[in-house]
């Protein structure tokens, strides 16, 4: 067991591509850290540097008390699960799992015991004599896990281990990996591009973009308190609604003007974010999570101020709730941060977004209770939970929080 520390780590590949910039991370002993970010942001590179499969161009990585920069993978006492499992096709499941132990000249009896132990933990006992190609995807994934846990290394490294599985199995294995990690208490670095996976699995989640760490926090903090527009739009599904808003002072308080509508900024919020007063008279990016919106016709005590009116363009009934896409006037935020963060958007939607920006129309997604009977083309009011509004500087993309 050990902690893992990145200190100002850079990675420049031989072809001159810099994949990781100045990465500093501190992963506690026994912690499950998820590295998440869009594809190509340097997650795999960071992980492979810990494994010793990729040289560290600058900075240091330490495992426990040892700086491992110049150690071979073997000396680092880690185990890695690869995206395509990398099982040895010519060896049986049992031999695959035992491979690392045998290389270390572990006594035969211990090997036997440990393989049995790992197989039991993963439900592989009856498959030990099979070849990898005689297994299903989920079983292969388990074998890859087995190969990692059997050696009881100091650190587990996993590179998108579930991305080759179908959706249902992925959810199941997600839980299982979490269970095993908790049971063994082994420090784990887990790489994924899927923010849902990151949020459900990690003790802490580190969000990366273009080789740079954006924010490392608990899933809850990441969701409720994103540091910048990229994190705000990357984390959460559906994404945070973002619209340009003008901050104006009114009756001693602050008001956010969205198109031709206004939302009052609660006093507590503006005092918790003193920097906001510096933006009076300027435009900011205003963020609203879908669950902060509710169908006004279903809210009794509707404080009249906190409302936005718009036209419903699409509804998605999910049974437990209803997602309403509501179009209102106001300019959507379409900076690079947002486009890159909102990985769910397809190209056509990006074009659509650009066009809407020109027309100063924006679409909010609201997560309404299932009882809501809004239909497309209805013009409706939405009640906004203004306590949790988020504000970002349009230029830097940073969250507007404490003083400058």
């Amino acid at each position: 067991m050990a902690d893992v520390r990145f200190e100002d780590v850079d990675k420049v590949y031989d072809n001159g591509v810099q994949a990781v910039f100045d990465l500093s991370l501190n992963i506690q002993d026994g912690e499950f850290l998820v590295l998440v970010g869009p594809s190509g942001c340097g997650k795999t590179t960071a992980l492979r540097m810990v494994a010793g499969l990729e040289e560290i161009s600058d900075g240091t990585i330490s495992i426990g008390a040892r700086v491992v920069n110049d150690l071979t993978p073997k000396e680092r006492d880690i185990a890695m699960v690869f995206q395509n499992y990398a099982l040895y096709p010519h060896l049986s499941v049992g031999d695959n799992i035992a491979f690392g132990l045998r290389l270390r000249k572990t006594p035969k009896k211990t090997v036997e015991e440990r393989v049995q132990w790992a197989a039991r933990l993963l439900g592989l006992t009856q498959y030990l004599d099979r070849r990898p190609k005689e297994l299903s995807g989920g079983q292969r994934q388990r074998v890859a896990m087995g190969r990692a846990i059997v050696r009881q290394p100091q650190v587990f490294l996993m590179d998108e281990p579930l991305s080759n599985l179908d959706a249902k199995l992925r959810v199941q294995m997600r839980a299982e990996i979490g269970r095993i990690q908790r049971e063994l208490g082994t420090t784990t670095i887990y790489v994924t591009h899927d923010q849902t996976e990151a949020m459900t699995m990690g003790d802490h989640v580190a969000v990366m973009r273009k080789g740079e760490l954006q924010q490392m926090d608990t899933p809850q903090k990441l969701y409720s308190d994103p540091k910048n527009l990229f994190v705000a739009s990357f984390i959460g599904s559906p994404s945070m609604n973002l619209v340009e808003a003008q901050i104006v002072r009114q009756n001693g308080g602050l008001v956010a003007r969205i198109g031709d509508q206004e939302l009052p900024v609660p006093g507590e919020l503006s005092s918790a974010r003193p920097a906001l007063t510096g933006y009076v008279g300027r435009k900011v990016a205003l963020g609203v999570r879908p669950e902060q919106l509710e169908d006004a016709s279903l809210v009794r005590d509707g404080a009249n101020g906190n409302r936005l009116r718009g036209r419903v363009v699409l509804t998605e009934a999910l049974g437990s709730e209803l997602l309403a896409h509501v179009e209102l006037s106001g300019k959507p935020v379409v900076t690079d941060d947002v486009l890159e963060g909102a990985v769910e958007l397809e190209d056509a939607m990006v074009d659509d977004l650009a066009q809407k920006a020109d027309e100063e129309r924006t679409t909010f997604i609201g997560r309404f209770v299932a009882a809501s009977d809004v239909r497309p083309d209805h013009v409706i009011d939405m009640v906004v939970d203004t306590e949790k509004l988020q504000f970002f500087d349009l230029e830097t993309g940073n969250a507007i929080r404490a003083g400058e």
Partner: protein
Amino acid sequence: MTAIDQTAAAIPAARPATKTGPRRPKLRDTWWRHVVAWIAIVVALFPVAYIASAAFTGNPSLAGSSLIPRHLTLDNFKKLFSPGNSTTDITSNASNYPHWILNTLIVATSTAFFTVMLGALAAYAFSRFRFRGRRMGMLGLLLVQMFPQMLAVVAIYLIVVHTGTVFHVLALNTLTGLIIVYLGGVMSVNVWFMKGFFDTIPAELDESARVDGASPAQVFWGVVLPLAAPVLAVIGLFSFVGVLNEFIIASVLLQSDKKLTLPVGMRGFIDQQFSQHWGPFAAGVLIAAVPVVILFMFLQRFIVEGLTAGSVKG
């Protein structure tokens, strides 16, 4: 990835009685394949039948031989293995046939073995490591391959003569000398071939083994070589057969009768103007074919896989 898909797809098909599995093709649609196959078999076996017939009849010349021997005899075989040739008209060197067989087996086996080993080492380096001169090395190998080895016969002869004065094991008229020359001759094409195959073995397997604690040598012997077995079998077989057929270099480098390989020795049976010995010749080549056939049967499984390279499972 694709390899995984393939194997995954192969699993249900392997189970018996899957209703959705591909139907067995109807003979009505495929009869022409059988016709082609049978024609090919007949064409291939015809010369073999002729040789077999010549080997088992007493007829000394080809002129009078027929496809179906009238009376069978083992005389030709006996002649090959009987020293002293008291009763036969065979030339004295016939008694060296056992030597030739042995020489050929020694040369072919060692050439095949070392070709595979050296080639695999080189190919592994070219496939996995990035080092200065890698590209040039690969191109150099290709370039060398463009000249037929025959062009180099004179040079090879001179080199062997001179090396032989220093290293006696590599001198003219030694099997070791011949083996070394053979090893150099086919190395480059084999390295290219094997590198192509190694490239299809996912690098993650190497990396996974390294993380598991394997040294580069352990990765090579424990992971890569076993997976490359098909291509090793193919290369081994081809170089074995290649040596079995090689005439020119062997005839230049080997001189004394007892040192000859089969092709060179056997030629003595039929190049004499007045005493051609087609019978013993036929018997000799028939025997020579046996190891190749055995090898083919032994390696068949690999060869099919190796020739359809790229199907290594990830």
